[in-house]
């Protein structure tokens, strides 16, 4: 009897769980912030190890070409957020918005959320994936409500109600997929394993798969924040602590979308099913255009960037709906770039809100003259998210539009229109935020720029020069997605 082989996935998942348990015991918030960073670094280490050696696929867990990059992205943004959070929470304690007890709770929930997201990404079992997304959602709900103000409670309650409805629809879809599989694959765990489902996809009952996908699209689509199921998203982003906004936008939306992609692969592999592309295209375009107009009416800075997340999720879902090697390539790239850029924006916005003591756009002016470094960082990251070259978001949005133009010019024109409208809104607000006569306190900022710069430089590299190996990898996955 030999020792069971070392499995990086299990090591990664255990790290978060153990860290969550340990953080429950640490009283001093400085130590818990450090422990949080340490745990996140170990998770990143194991995630990178997955590129080197992948454990064999079993009925519960898998690591394949599609998910390794999301696991790595998850771990990376998790680490940078924990670093940002360490500098952010000290200020929240000073101003009395949080107490040490709540902070301890916050750290436990943070690691639980990371555990849930990593489990969802590595799950090979569609039931386990559902449980994991549910866990990640519940832990974020609690964190959104942690300030216990009127607005925070309302945001958390709204998120809870809409999130539960979404998760209920997704579970019904999951049960229908199992029902479709059980006659060919046989009863038991095998019929819930994603790899089995994909292998037998062509023999599954197409009409059941159709209905199942509609439920899954609506259910997980709620978590992705697609309009018209997006109502929870702006509130949750605006009222929760900023590190939570960063991981919500940067990671949780991606995880839900990843779940949808897995199911899309199964449905696409069955010749008898309806084309899911048009469904995703209409939801994606709808979200994109709706949110780009909504961007103009925002008064709260975090809420504005939350709408920008809906807009980007719209573009991504549109890209995957168009499909084809190039469309999928663009979608995957956009997911990565958006997640890096948007979390960088939230990091800087968090510091801005702390130094100015407000989240109202109307009360913040002239950041580049009152806090030059922070101001210019914000300018750079907003330009990046608006899709200006040389940043990576430009590359991916350009790819989305051009690949769509080749196949459906009218739809591509609509998408381009939405992007332009959003671009205008972002620049308009950026102008008043960053330039003009500075308002508010000029207190020096105690920010940690490391996470922001790390993200922005990755986005810049993605826009200027993408390593050949990465392009090959993205193309490989894009062809897997069909």
């Amino acid at each position, binding site marked *: 009897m030999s020792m069971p082989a070392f499995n990086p996935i299990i090591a990664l998942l255990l790290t978060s769980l153990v860290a969550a348990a340990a953080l429950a015991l640490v009283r001093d918030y400085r130590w818990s912030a450090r422990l949080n960073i340490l745990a996140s670094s170990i998770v990143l280490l194991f995630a990178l190890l997955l590129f080197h050696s992948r454990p064999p696929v079993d009925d519960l867990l898998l690591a394949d070409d599609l998910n390794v990059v999301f696991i790595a992205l998850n771990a990376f943004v998790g680490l940078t957020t924990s670093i940002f959070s360490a500098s952010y929470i000290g200020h929240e304690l000073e101003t009395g918005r949080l107490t040490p007890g709540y902070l301890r709770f916050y750290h436990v929930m943070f690691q639980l959320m990371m555990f849930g997201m990593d489990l969802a990404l590595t799950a090979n079992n569609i039931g386990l994936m*559902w449980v994991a997304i549910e866990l990640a959602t519940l832990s974020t709900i609690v964190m959104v409500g942690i300030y*216990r103000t*009127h607005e925070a409670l309302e945001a958390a309650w709204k998120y*809870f109600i809409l999130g539960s409805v979404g998760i209920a629809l997704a579970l019904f879809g999951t*049960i229908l997929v*199992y029902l479709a599989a059980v006659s060919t694959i046989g009863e*038991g765990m095998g019929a819930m394993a994603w790899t089995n489902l994909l292998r037998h996809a062509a023999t599954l009952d197409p009409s059941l798969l159709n*209905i199942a996908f509609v439920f899954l699209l609506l259910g997980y689509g709620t978590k992705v924040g697609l309009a018209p199921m997006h109502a929870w998203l702006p509130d949750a982003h605006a009222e929760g602590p900023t590190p939570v906004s960063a991981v919500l936008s940067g990671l949780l939306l991606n995880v839900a979308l990843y779940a949808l992609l897995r199911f899309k692969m199964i449905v696409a592999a069955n010749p008898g099913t309806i084309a899911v592309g048009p469904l995703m295209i209409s939801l994606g375009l709808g979200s994109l255009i709706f949110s780009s107009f909504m961007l103009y009416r925002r008064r709260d800075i975090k809420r504005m960037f939350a709408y920008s997340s809906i807009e980007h999720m719209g573009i991504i879902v549109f890209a995957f709906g168009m499909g084809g090697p190039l469309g999928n390539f663009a979608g995957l790239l956009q997911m990565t770039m958006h997640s890096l850029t948007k979390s960088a924006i939230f990091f800087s916005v968090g510091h801005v809100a702390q130094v100015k003591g407000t989240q109202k756009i109307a009360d913040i002016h002239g950041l580049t003259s009152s806090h030059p470094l922070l101001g210019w960082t914000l300018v750079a990251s907003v330009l990046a998210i608006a899709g200006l070259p040389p940043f990576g978001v430009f590359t991916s949005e350009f790819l989305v539009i051009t690949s769509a133009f080749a196949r459906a010019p009218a739809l591509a024109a609509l998408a381009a229109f939405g992007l332009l409208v959003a671009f205008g809104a972002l620049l308009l607000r950026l102008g008043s935020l960053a330039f003009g006569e500075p308002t508010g306190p000029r207190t020096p900022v105690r920010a940690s720029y490391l996470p922001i710069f790390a993200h922005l430089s990755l986005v810049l590299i993605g826009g200027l020069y993408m390593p050949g190996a990465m392009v090959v990898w993205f193309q490989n996955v894009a062809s897997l997605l069909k």
Partner: protein
Amino acid sequence: MSPLAFDIAHMFAGGLVLVSFMMLYQDRLLPLINVLSLHSLLLALSVAWQANVQDKPDLYVTAVIALGFKSIIIPMALRRMVVRMELHREIEVAVGTGMTMLLGVGLVALSMDLMLRVTAGASALAREDVALALSVVLLGLLMMVTRRNAVSQVIGFMSIENGLILAGTGARGMPLVVEISVAFSILIAFIVIGIFLFRIRERFDTVDLHALDRFRGERR
């Protein structure tokens, strides 16, 4: 499967739909909690019967959870909460009972038509169960959107969960992972809800969500 076994399974599942309708028109909180209790009791019976006819002893665990946790413990806790907050005298203005019931009938017809058509290949028991389960889920959703009170929204959510478990047990041989996880998630969800209700009460002195609507979200 014998026709009698099928009929009994059918009766329990149909009973769940019927009790869901009772929830729709019940506008007082304490009786509503009793209806939730009945709903979960019927679910427990239904799951136990499925465990019997499918010869899957592990399903009894799900039945026991439904009976003990969802039919007894949670309703008791909710009742205490309602009494302590002095909500039991309030009459909730449900959005037009007649209209809601009509909508409910429409939803049941929809789910029957949809599910029976697409599940033609599955076994008769699974077909009926999934169709009725979808009705329960949709009725629960309807209840959640027509109510303003946080407690009745929670009850609506629990009836959705009950519908999902009915679907899960109807799908033959669905691994226990899901059942246990559902039970767990209910537990977690309930704790979360508990915390929330507590905090909302603390802040607003009411659990009427109308009070929350003052805050449009956007800071002005």
